[in-house]
């Protein structure tokens, strides 16, 4: 394996991922509190805080105020010397840092944190969030066309079988050629695969539904037969048993 991650783009630091999770928790908590209070008006009367956006959270996680200074060059002109701003995420060292390439370990860590947030199978928003983050994680930022191409559709590899990494190439022209090549060819393959999938879809849907029908109807047939047979064995008042009893009585001349 190469020392550098196999794609360009940038992966954000794990502190960023953790802060994102904390913000989501706060937002969900506040939303739930408002819902339980009986709506926005009732929540306002009770003085409940409203859910905040990511930017508002990142300049003041504690919610104790974020003083600004006209002379400050910090994001949002926050005053770095104010004790109230010690919590501001945007003033932390890691805020502007990012790692080149796609760091699968950090992305996996973030996705697993997202997964742990799903309460149960009824937590549909949590499941949707996790699914979307699995497809396109917030902590990975693609910066070129090649970053949209999954490994499955990439044909450019080095002699060790690793994906060609444009960011390892010093020459700008080579780097651009590698990025454009991976991007154009990969996206072309993805388009062709998508087209093939669309062509197959009617057949897949038709056969899929037929399969489901066979399985469900077949299972119900088994249930129907099982019910009938069980009835034959254990129910003395079933129509079949009654008929048998009547026939026997007739034969014996007891009716």
């Amino acid at each position: 394996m190469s020392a550098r991650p196999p794609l360009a783009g940038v992966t954000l630091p794990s502190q960023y991922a953790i802060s994102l999770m904390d913000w989501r928790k706060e937002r969900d908590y506040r939303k739930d509190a408002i819902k339980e209070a009986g709506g926005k008006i009732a929540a306002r009367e009770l003085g409940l805080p409203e859910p905040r956006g990511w930017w508002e959270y990142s300049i003041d996680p504690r919610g104790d105020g974020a003083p600004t200074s006209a002379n400050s060059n910090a994001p949002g002109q926050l005053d770095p010397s104010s004790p109230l701003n010690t919590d501001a995420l945007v003033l932390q060292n890691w805020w502007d840092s990012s790692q080149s390439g796609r760091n699968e370990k950090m992305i996996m860590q973030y996705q697993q944190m997202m997964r742990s947030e799903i309460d149960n199978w009824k937590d549909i928003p949590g499941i949707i969030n996790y699914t979307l983050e699995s497809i396109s994680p917030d902590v990975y930022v693609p910066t070129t066309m090649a970053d949209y191409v999954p490994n499955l559709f990439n044909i450019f590899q080095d002699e060790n079988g690793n994906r060609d990494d444009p960011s390892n190439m010093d020459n700008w022209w080579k780097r651009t050629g590698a990025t454009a090549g991976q991007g154009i060819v990969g996206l072309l393959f993805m388009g062709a695969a998508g087209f093939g999938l669309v062509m197959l879809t009617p057949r897949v849907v038709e056969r899929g539904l037929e399969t489901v029908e066979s399985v469900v109807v077949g299972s119900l047939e088994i249930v129907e037969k099982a019910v009938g047979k069980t009835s034959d064995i254990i129910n003395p008042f079933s129509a079949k048993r009654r008929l048998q009893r009547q026939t026997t009585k007739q034969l014996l001349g007891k009716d």
Partner: protein
Amino acid sequence: MVQSIEDNLIDPTVSGIMNVPANIAETIGDFEAFGYDVYDIMWGDFGSEEKATKTIESMIGFDRADREVVVNDPGDIPNQVTLLPIDNDINRAIGRRSIWNIFEEEGLKMTSGTIEEPTFAWNVFGDDDFDETRTRTVFAPFSIYTPTVLWPYTSDDGTRFTVHDFANTPLESDFLGAKPIVEVIAGRKLDRYGALPGFAKWGDPLLGTGPVLIGGTAAALLGLTAWFWGPAIAQRAAATAKSAVFGTLELAGAVGGKLKDVAKAPF
């Protein structure tokens, strides 16, 4: 052929011109005054052969080639421009923008940062502007707005390669050996693309030609082959919808009928 011209004509000529100050300084050093070497009794800008060379270079304008441009990148170009209609709030911090709402916050922005380039002044004429710089605003709509899925450039640290990175990319060409002369005439060190005259205007459009060619070619190919894939996709989509609707109805009917049978089963 070109290499031969460079080796036999351009290189010696340029080298001869560029060595003029050193040759003059050396010639001065050959003189003696009162039994002393000239440089032993001279001071200031002519206190040594080296100083004399520098002074003469300055007098005939050769020092114009030492002046460097400065690229000011305000870091206001997003790392990713996506076609998905995402919320800007969470993505603002990580430098991700959606093409659908990128204008909402900052409006239409056609420029980013500046290039400070030396004035065209010649020191030899005692021009006061020699040490001054002129600030050029960098035209950058392609770097700011081109969707990442069409962007074929990357910087060596994985971030989006913008017009500022392009400006700082080393210029490896030696202009067929004439670079020193060209630098004197241009009045600046031509060590990177951003130092080329007018880069602030043409740098970003040049970067934009790649995505425009890729996007344009893709659009043209899709348009020209639409007769093939258009009806096929429409037909399959209709067939899929039909299969889904009728298949589901059929499934519901079959399951319902069978459930009735199960309910009627003698028990």
